[in-house]
């Protein structure tokens, strides 16, 4: 029976894809089988448009314990018999529909990806983007998303240690909600998701299955938000308490050594969980949907297989150890049931009681067609690239008022309003929490600490996807360098529009190439990630926005650095430049250009060779105890970096070096590969030698001290004004 166009639309399969299925199967699939294909051949599960591009990313590192994509998350050896597991995932569409639950279940999903590998989740980070706060709908989405993350993350006892929040009209109809989770596991306790052992049992544990989120993977992740609103998807509602109990029970179970495999249920629910687990093991499976505990009556096999009900886990266990595993579930008052078995025939066979309702070869189901398109540069680039920066007039009010305006801009202002709603201390490892360049967590039982950062800049990528992608990677690593950490690995979430449109495909391709180039330069692999495409409103794609999560290592946790200026008289240096000179081109894509001149234009640029050297110098200097503070020069440029170090330290700065060129570009330009550091004056000779050895230019900016930020003839602002603008900026925008 051929399938109707409506059914294909529902599962987001094209006619050509359907024909391919028929050809490979040698028959028409039934309705349930079409649903399985729709899920597994979706962008979300099958990476149809992105997989070939993602191969650009370097994935080699002696520390890598699992190949990228082979498991639910990437795994990195940090020594001492320990490994760090990490991944980021988007929940953009669910959050647009219902911000509180959408964001909450996003946290739940990424946390399951981590503990399914036997790792205890030790940190969450969030990268969030919304439309401007002067619109009540954007305020509603922002408040709802933060509330949902707070509700879910706080309840499960995983600290939320960092992240970023940005606002731009590009995200007005389509907010980006990316959640990153990091876990810690003893190397030899690492759990896999590979099903094996003919006759072994598949046990489903956790929440009952309801009709929530059907078509989440195929439908939501392959449609633009407006089409999806039409579909009125059932909102998934999270149960963080159940998640917390699942974390403890699953980790306890993993420690018994009785489990063959463990796999969470995420997008496409049972379908992807069971079938991907079987595919990894090269085995077959049978499932009886009648044995899946239901929350609702009258559910069809189709609904059971595609439900995205939250807080469910699948474990594979041998018959002889079934009771050992069930005992752990009972201790935690968890419901579980045996729903199937591992077989040797390479098929997934789905029964409803005695009746066989679907039977498909797993190798076909998990081998979607991969597309390679020829991207076309977006037409807007000509205009944004052609803009003449020199034509901008200098703001008549002068540098001080401009600095205050930038500090209170919601993109730069303190995000304390957000992160004070997140528990960032539980588990008592947080040496540096939110608000700095990177979070630093000690690893108990060792002298080590790990550093975590989270970066993306949609504006740069919009103006130049290649350079923007490279900068996202460089900045994530630079933030790690600013606390003194060696970058070990990256995870990424690529948020783009509809890739079937060639201009969007171009952005995706260029961005990945740029990211890959920076990864190679900085010698850091991408170990896991997620692709979120179809982020569009009314035919307008969001800014191409890769979010990069960085993991760094500090061999000795005491050898870390923070952004705060510390002592009067310390010398403030800028690494990565030999003079302070305002070059108009550095205003391209800057926060200043948008806030003060209302423009998004220009071309960002980065010199990766310089970037590598600056980061190495920063790390070395911190390791040798030479730096008293270090802060990345990013959004808002040099003046904002200085102001933030002053505010964090509660002490002023007195600039003493000459400023050439345009003062707006000198103070607020966003040239890359620059770090503001402070050094005790007695350590300057040692620092100078180290910088020479590393081949990094630097310039002395002035000294720490006083209660004002001053720069002869340019700036003179009291610390308390800086602080008021920066601390109050976000709340002011919210209550406006």
């Amino acid at each position: 029976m051929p399938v109707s166009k409506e059914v294909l639309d529902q599962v987001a399969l094209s006619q050509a894809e359907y024909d391919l299925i028929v050809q490979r199967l040698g028959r028409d699939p039934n309705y349930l089988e079409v649903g399985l294909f729709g899920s597994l051949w979706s962008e979300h599960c099958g990476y149809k448009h992105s997989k070939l591009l993602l191969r650009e990313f370097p994935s080699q590192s002696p520390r890598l314990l699992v190949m990228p994509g082979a498991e639910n998350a990437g795994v990195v050896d940090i020594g001492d018999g320990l490994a760090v597991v990490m991944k980021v995932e988007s929940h953009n569409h669910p959050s647009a529909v219902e911000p509180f639950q959408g964001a909450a279940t996003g946290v739940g999903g990424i946390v399951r990806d981590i503990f399914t590998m036997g790792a205890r989740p030790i940190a969450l980070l969030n990268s969030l983007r919304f439309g401007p706060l002067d619109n009540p709908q954007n305020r509603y989405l922002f408040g709802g998303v933060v509330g949902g993350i707070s509700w879910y993350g706080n309840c499960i006892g995983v600290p939320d240690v960092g992240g970023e929040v940005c606002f731009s009209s590009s995200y007005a109809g389509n907010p980006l909600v990316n959640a990153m989770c990091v876990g810690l596991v003893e190397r030899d306790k690492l759990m896999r998701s590979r099903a094996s052992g003919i006759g072994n049992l598949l046990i489903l544990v956790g929440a009952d299955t309801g009709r929530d989120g059907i078509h989440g993977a195929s439908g939501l992740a392959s449609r633009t938000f407006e089409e999806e609103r039409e579909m009125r998807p059932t909102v998934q509602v999270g149960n963080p308490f159940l998640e917390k109990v699942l974390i403890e029970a699953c980790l306890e179970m993993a420690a018994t050594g009785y489990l063959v495999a463990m796999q969470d249920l995420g997008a496409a629910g049972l379908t992807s969980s069971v079938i991907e687990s079987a595919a990894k093991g090269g085995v077959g499976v049978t499932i009886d949907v009648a044995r899946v505990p239901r929350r609702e009556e009258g559910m069809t096999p189709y609904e059971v297989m595609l439900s995205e009900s939250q807080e469910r886990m699948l474990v594979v266990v041998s018959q002889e150890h079934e009771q050992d595993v069930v005992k752990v579930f009972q201790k935690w008052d968890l419901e579980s049931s045996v729903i199937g078995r591992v077989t040797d025939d390479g098929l997934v066979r789905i029964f409803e009681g005695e009746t066989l309702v679907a039977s498909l070869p797993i190798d076909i189901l998990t081998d979607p067609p991969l597309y390679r398109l020829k991207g076309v540069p977006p037409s807007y680039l000509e205009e944004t690239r052609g803009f003449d920066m020199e034509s901008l007039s200098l703001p008549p009010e002068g540098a001080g008022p401009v600095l205050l305006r930038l500090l209170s801009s919601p993109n730069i202002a303190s995000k304390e309003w957000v992160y004070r709603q997140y528990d960032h201390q539980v588990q008592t490892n947080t040496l540096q929490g939110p608000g700095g360049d990177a979070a630093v967590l000690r690893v108990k039982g060792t002298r080590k600490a790990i550093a975590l950062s989270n970066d993306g800049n949609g504006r740069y990528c919009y103006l130049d996807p290649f350079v923007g992608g490279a900068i996202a990677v460089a900045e994530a690593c630079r933030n790690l360098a600013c606390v003194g950490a060696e970058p070990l690995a990256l995870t990424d979430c690529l948020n783009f529009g509809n890739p079937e449109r060639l201009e969007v495909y171009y952005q995706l391709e260029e961005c990945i190439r740029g990211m890959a180039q920076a990864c190679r330069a900085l010698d850091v692999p991408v170990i896991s990630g997620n692709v979120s495409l179809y982020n569009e409103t009314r035919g307008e794609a969001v800014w191409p926005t890769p979010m990069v999560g960085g993991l760094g290592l500090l061999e000795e946790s005491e050898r870390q650095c923070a952004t705060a200026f510390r002592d009067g008289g310390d010398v403030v240096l800028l690494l990565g430049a030999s003079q302070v000179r305002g070059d108009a081109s550095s205003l391209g894509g800057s926060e200043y250009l948008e806030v003060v001149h209302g423009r998004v234009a220009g071309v960002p640029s980065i010199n990766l060779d310089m970037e590598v050297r600056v980061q190495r110098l920063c790390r070395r200097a911190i390791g040798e105890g030479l730096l008293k503070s270090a802060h990345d020069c990013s959004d808002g440029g040099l003046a904002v970096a200085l102001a933030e170090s002053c505010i964090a330290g509660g002490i002023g700065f007195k600039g003493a070096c000459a400023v050439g060129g345009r003062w707006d570009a000198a103070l607020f330009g966003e040239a890359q590969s620059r770090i503001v550091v402070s050094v005790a004056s007695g350590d300057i000779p040692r620092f100078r030698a180290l910088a020479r050895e590393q081949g990094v230019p630097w310039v002395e900016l002035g000294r720490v001290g006083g209660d004002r930020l001053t720069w002869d003839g340019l700036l003179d602002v009291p610390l308390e004004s800086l602080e008021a603008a920066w601390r109050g900026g976000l709340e002011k925008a919210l209550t406006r």
Partner: protein
Amino acid sequence: MRFGVVVFPGTWSDEDCYHVVKSVLGQEARYVWHKDRDLSGLDCLILPGGFSYGDYLRTGAIARFSPVMEEVERFARRGGLVLGICNGFQILCEAGMLPGALMRNDHLQFRCQWVNLRVESSRTPFTSECKEGQVLRIPISHGEGNYYADADTLASLRAKGQVVFRYCTPGGDITPEANPNGSLENIAGIINAQGNVLGMMPHPERCCEASLGGTDGRFIFESMLKVLA
């Protein structure tokens, strides 16, 4: 000293408390599962923070019916020291072992931040190492820490010196601005009439090591050690 750290489903400060007792203070500690009733050999019990049973219905409302709670009451009646932190404080109130109730923060948001606490009484086993009026810097992390009790109960708490901690300014003043959650009279911690059961919303276990930003939490644990020694 042997500490018991009670674990309910949804508890998450258990490991933090255990770490402090064991690794920072060098004392003995063991976990007590909420379905167990065996408290033998323990000198002191900690009811840690978290979201027991998800804090569904009300904070601590379901946990207080766990089997272990009958034993905790018996332990307290016999004079054993019981320290309820955050969710532990909420459970003790629900169980009637401490007066009053903890309601949703008046601004309706969760708050994780450092606060200042004024020690209102040093004549308790939990504050004997503090001076009265001393200001401790300790983090809070809760959505429902807004202490409420009726006027008579409040008057009685005051009269009997049962208010142990109040939220204050860094200089020790009790002001509305220093109150992070709307608690009546800025109350952050109270003790029972018998003087051996303390409930407090702030987390002393989060500030016993300098690398975490402060060590004022040790005053509380070290006071207990002194009493038990």
